[in-house]
């Protein structure tokens, strides 16, 4: 028996004792992360059990891949090791919807859809629309800092979280923040946890602030002749008094550029907003359109096994330049590109081509231009073979050593998602 198998056997017995044998199963091929095959999938039932699992794994050097709905497993570098997947599937309860306070406390494995359906009973919603809400979990959305098209109105997911409970590698369960909408007691460990890709601890519970569900949603679309015109219109809308909850651009080819805007006020003000929108848009005609255009981000991920999907972040005034750079680098090589950009300057981009080497080169060139604009390009998903040829997170500036020190303080044994985060954290 090899050393690895011995370790795995011992780990199996120890982990099984923590969660019960029925909650530890052998991993299947679909549990692999970037083709790194784990031995098992463990599903603790409480935060304390999560912490015990982590403590054992840290002491024994067993690596852990925390997983919610598994919708964003393509994010990050290929893990250095992936001994066990830690599934949050059993921590799936909505603990308390304090509707009078407009807050909700949920366990990390609760899906976004389930959360939304509970708070909807009192006319409220979480002001975020992450992708694949029927599968995506609260913990996964927080770990990856995914928010969606509502962000332009309600802020990022970090702005909607009031507190988290987190299990750490030393076996402790900590809480950060609280249940009230304003709270500056102690360091904001919540912010540190959000977007840390499970490399500092495993989020087991979160408290969100909620917003009222608007009564009259309406979406309008306009087609624009060029990326420059589209950018101009976006900037004019951003500079206006319009009150919108979504502002998105979608570009598939140079001649297929659309801008979508969503209003969600009261019915009486909708007409007024539409008239004002018309004045801003000038010659560009906005027409009523179906609300499913707000799923365009998610649609990029459909049948994307051999595609490259990137998250870009630029200034709103650079969206036109971003489009032009993309078109310029993909035009001659027959790469099919779709870009879905939000008014915040955040965008998702999908690139398809038969030749992966070509895609890698295109991506390098594009990233070079975007980083010169002070923007970022990170790879959200790509074929595993490409991951060895590109830095999926892009260039990290001078704060990397500090990030590594933080990782060292929270997970000195590097058992949590080893290698997947920036700089190989």
């Amino acid at each position: 028996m090899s050393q690895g198998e011995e370790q795995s056997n011992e780990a199996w017995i120890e982990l099984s004792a923590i969660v019960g044998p029925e909650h530890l199963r052998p991993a299947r091929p679909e549990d692999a992360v970037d083709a790194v095959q784990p031995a098992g999938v463990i599903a603790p039932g409480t935060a304390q059990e999560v912490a015990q699992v982590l403590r054992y794994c840290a002491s024994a050097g067993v690596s852990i891949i925390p997983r919610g709905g598994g919708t964003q497993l393509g994010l990050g570098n290929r893990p250095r090791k992936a001994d066990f997947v830690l599934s949050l599937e059993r921590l799936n309860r909505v603990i308390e919807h304090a509707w009078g306070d407009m807050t909700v406390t949920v366990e990390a494995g609760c899906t976004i859809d389930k959360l939304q359906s509970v708070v909807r009973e009192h006319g409220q919603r979480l002001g975020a629309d992450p992708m694949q809400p029927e599968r995506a979990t609260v913990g996964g959305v927080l770990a990856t800092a995914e928010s969606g098209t509502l962000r332009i109105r309600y802020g990022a997911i970090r702005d909607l979280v009031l507190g988290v409970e987190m299990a750490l590698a030393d076996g402790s369960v900590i809480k950060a923040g609280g249940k009230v909408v304003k709270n500056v007691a102690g360091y904001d460990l919540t912010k540190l946890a959000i977007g840390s890709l499970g490399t500092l601890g495993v989020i087991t519970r979160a408290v969100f602030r909620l917003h009222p569900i608007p009564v009259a949603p309406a979406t309008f679309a306009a087609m624009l002749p060029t990326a420059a015109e589209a950018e101009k219109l976006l900037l004019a809308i951003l500079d206006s008094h319009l009150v919108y909850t979504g502002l998105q651009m979608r570009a598939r080819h140079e001649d297929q550029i659309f801008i979508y805007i969503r209003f969600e006020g009261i019915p009486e003000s909708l007409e007024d907003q539409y008239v004002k929108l018309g004045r801003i848009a000038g010659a560009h005609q906005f027409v009523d359109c179906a609300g499913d255009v707000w799923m365009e981000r998610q649609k990029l991920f459909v049948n994307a096994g051999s595609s490259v999907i990137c998250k870009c972040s630029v200034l709103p005034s650079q969206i036109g330049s971003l489009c032009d750079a993309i078109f310029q680098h993909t035009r001659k090589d027959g790469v099919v590109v779709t870009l879905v950009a939000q008014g915040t300057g955040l965008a998702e981009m999908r690139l398809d081509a038969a030749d992966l080497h070509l895609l890698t080169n295109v991506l390098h060139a594009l990233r070079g231009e975007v980083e010169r604009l002070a923007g970022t390009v990170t790879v959200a998903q790509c074929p595993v073979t490409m991951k060895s040829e590109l830095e999926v997170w892009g260039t990290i500036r001078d704060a990397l050593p500090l990030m590594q020190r933080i990782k060292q303080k929270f997970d000195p044994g590097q058992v949590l998602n080893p290698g997947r985060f920036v700089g190989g954290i």
Partner: protein
Amino acid sequence: MNARLVSEFRSIVGDVGLVSGPEQLRTYECDGLTLFRVVPDLVLLPASAEEMQAVVKLCYRENIPMVARGSGTGLSGGALPVKGGVVISVTRMNRILEVDLPNARVVVEPGVTNSAITAAVSPRGYFYAPDPSSQVVCTVAGNVAENSGGAHCFKYGVTTTYILGLDVVLSDGTLLHLGGTTMDQPGYDLVGAFVGSEGTFGIITRITLRIIKKPETTQVLMAAFDSSSEAGAAVSNIIACGMFPAAMEIMDRLALEAAEAAVHANYPDCQALLLVELDGSAREVELLMEKVGPICKECGAWEIRLAKSEAERMAVWKGRKAAFAAVGRISPNYLVQDGVIPRTALPRVLGEIDRLSADAGLRVANVFHAGDGNLHPLVLYDRRIAGEEERAMTLAEDILRLCVEAGGSITGEHGIGEEKKMFMPVMFSPADLDAMQRLRSAFDPYDLCNPSKMFPGTDAKLQTPVAYEPHPIELAGLAQRY
């Protein structure tokens, strides 16, 4: 501090950037929390990031604790000097470096005041949303350190929502660029971690922040009630109707008297005044405001006034923002508290505060951000009366415990600083506090940045609290602490 070291500091910042005279140093002995005071060894006012870095490196070399300071308006003693340490003021670094309106971003040096940002962008219809009451004088770096809020954060959020990038100098003099100008920089959210760290992680030299478009219309309604509980019920009902006001504030009788005396805001003469501010599109605000009045009346409001013009609106807010300082007109001394409770607990907690106030035989004026449950009870006392100051402190502490028991927090926007560090264990477990310490030690392994603040039991010898004595220029009426 020995003369050789002083001259070394002087060679970095020049005469104008160094304060060493005993009387001048006393200006820095406390911040807005005047209960504690410590005279620093030296005050340094660097004029650039390079000077800042050089000053910090020298402190690091000599193992001198550093306390960063903005305008000193903080209310929790965050800028209280530590014994044997220096104060590093950012007030000379006060330039607005860049205004990028198309992208709604502004880059500033740390000592720019909160109001200066809005002043710079308001001609073009923008504003900087966090609005602490001290906004005319407080610095943005201080706001970042404390994660400051204000009256309008119910809708617009607190400082952390608006900060995109920070240049910071760590305790060993390393200059780091955290975040950036675009959103969602890859890596840990170090900007999010830094905001609210109360000067314990490092010193800020540059801030990139977001501004937002001023709404088309803003209206504020005043409703007069016979009790704060009734006003609190109106707040809940307004929210239950699906409205999302920009601000909802309640002031009780004592606070109103004080504000009226100070700025003549012409408030109705009542037991509790509720301010409801709606903003957004003109049509929507008009329509929704028509609903707010009746909701207030149902809850017992007997007078409703709507401030429609900008001038009327500013007068209403001026009174509210002056309330803390104004309490000085009705009481020789007072303690400002800053607790948070879930909004639905408001009537019960207010009742309890009344009871505690009666038991202690001390008056409590209440000013609060009702929308987000952030209470600012002001405990009034006279320190010339033996034992009153101690009773006032005990009462303030009891109010905080009450907030935590109700599921809330010991501070909503003023911070922990020196004042509340002993209360951290009331809210956080040893494991929670340990996790915070790990983060602190990653930023400042040498424990040189604002040491002994925020956490209990951290080296008490660095501070010797002494009851506040006014500075001679205060006694002369030449200056006032905010």
